[in-house]
């Protein structure tokens, strides 16, 4: 058993310290790189804190969309199902005239927003579209 504080906590405090104690003192030509470092630490901390159940939910949703069952404990299940899903979309199986279209879009949006919650939560659009 590891001692606390662990990865997410360490990354969070390291990032906060870096932003407060180091970043303001850097010359202008180093700020961009420093901000990238802080951003990478923030993403990593969020990924450590993410919900492990999301992967299981994604597998379940993909199985339903593709109409197939998944072998228990298959380590490659999520990648293989996404590959099949991608191929099915390319072939037109989820075209707007087809039954699974809305369900598939909803699933894609959920997955995209789950990833955005880790890398850029401010970018998550509410209820669809902020364009025009």
């Amino acid at each position, binding site marked *: 058993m590891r001692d606390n504080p662990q990865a997410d906590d360490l990354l969070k405090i390291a990032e906060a310290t870096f932003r407060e104690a180091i970043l303001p003192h850097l010359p202008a030509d180093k700020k961009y790189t420093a901000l990238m470092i802080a951003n990478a630490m923030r993403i990593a901390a969020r990924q450590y804190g993410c919900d492990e159940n999301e992967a299981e939910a994604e597998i379940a949703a993909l199985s339903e969309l593709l109409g197939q069952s998944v072998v228990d404990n298959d380590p490659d299940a999520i990648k293989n199902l996404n590959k099949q899903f991608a191929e099915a979309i390319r072939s037109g199986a989820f075209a707007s005239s087809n039954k699974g279209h809305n369900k598939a879009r909803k699933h894609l949006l959920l997955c*995209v*927003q789950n990833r955005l919650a880790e890398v850029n939560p401010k970018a998550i659009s509410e209820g669809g579209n902020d364009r025009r």
Partner: protein
Amino acid sequence: MDIQPGIESYLLYLDEVNTVEITDLRLLSGGAIQQNWLLDVTVNGTSLETVLRTDSTSSLEDSLSRAQEYAIFKKAFDAGVTVPEPLWLSVDPQWIGKPFFIMRRVGGTAAGHKIVRNDAMGGSRKVLASRLGQELAHIHSIKHGQAELDFLALPTPTPALHRVAEYRAALDASNMPQPTLEWGLYWLEQNAPDAVSELVLCHNDFRTGNYMVTEQSLTGVLDWEFAAWGDPLVDIGWFCAKCWRFGAVENEAGGVSHRDDFYDGYEQVTGVRIDRNAVLYWEVMATMRWAIIAIKQGDRHISGREPSLELALTRHIVPELEQDILNMTQEAGNA
């Protein structure tokens, strides 16, 4: 590598040059695909402020060579596009080990995040957007069939379907399945417009961040390495796409101003009205293209070929682009 002796030797080798004194030579920041060097040089007693452009350590397989880029600079300069004046080109590796060209340096900033936050850039927001529309129209005045530019790619079977095939091939070459991008590509395939009657020179990276501007005016359109023949709406969609507004999403013309200011400038020069409804398709295509580039850049880091924090973080902009694609295709309907 110290390139100064090689540049001096090259300039002295030119027939018209008798004396050379380099007074400043510095590598400028930025440029993942090419290097830009600030070069101040006195030639035959005349001071020149220039930029030397050469290959970086890495290059994208679909970008142009420096010699081809130089030919485009010359063509654009002659067509009245505001570009830095191209001065000399060398493809001989004996001077600095790789091809390079030298162009006049133009003043101002290209930093997108600064430009979109400053109301006064380029005169005013409205003036700058209109001027950018005019510049793009001058670029599009160069029609397919120019012998000097016969190296440029032709899109087949149509500009839109050419891109769909190219991006699918890029996804096939990448390790991870991308169902959301496949969703967008299917929509782009099903809604692809017909081929245009006349192909024009497309800049293919005409956006905020790739032009230089002062508070007085636009001083230069830069970064021509992706130029090719195509549908003029490709450039209009790329310029207006949400992903190139640097956070100023309400200013739909490149984060600078209203869309109509940009369109007005373009239409003043061409005399042809832009089909407003057709632009959305090319904004979806633009968002797709940026997502594909981001995946390729991320793969350069992930593969270990080119470890880079910037490339690694670029890979993580993909979900935002995917969300835009899902929203825009829903808005447009069909497929």
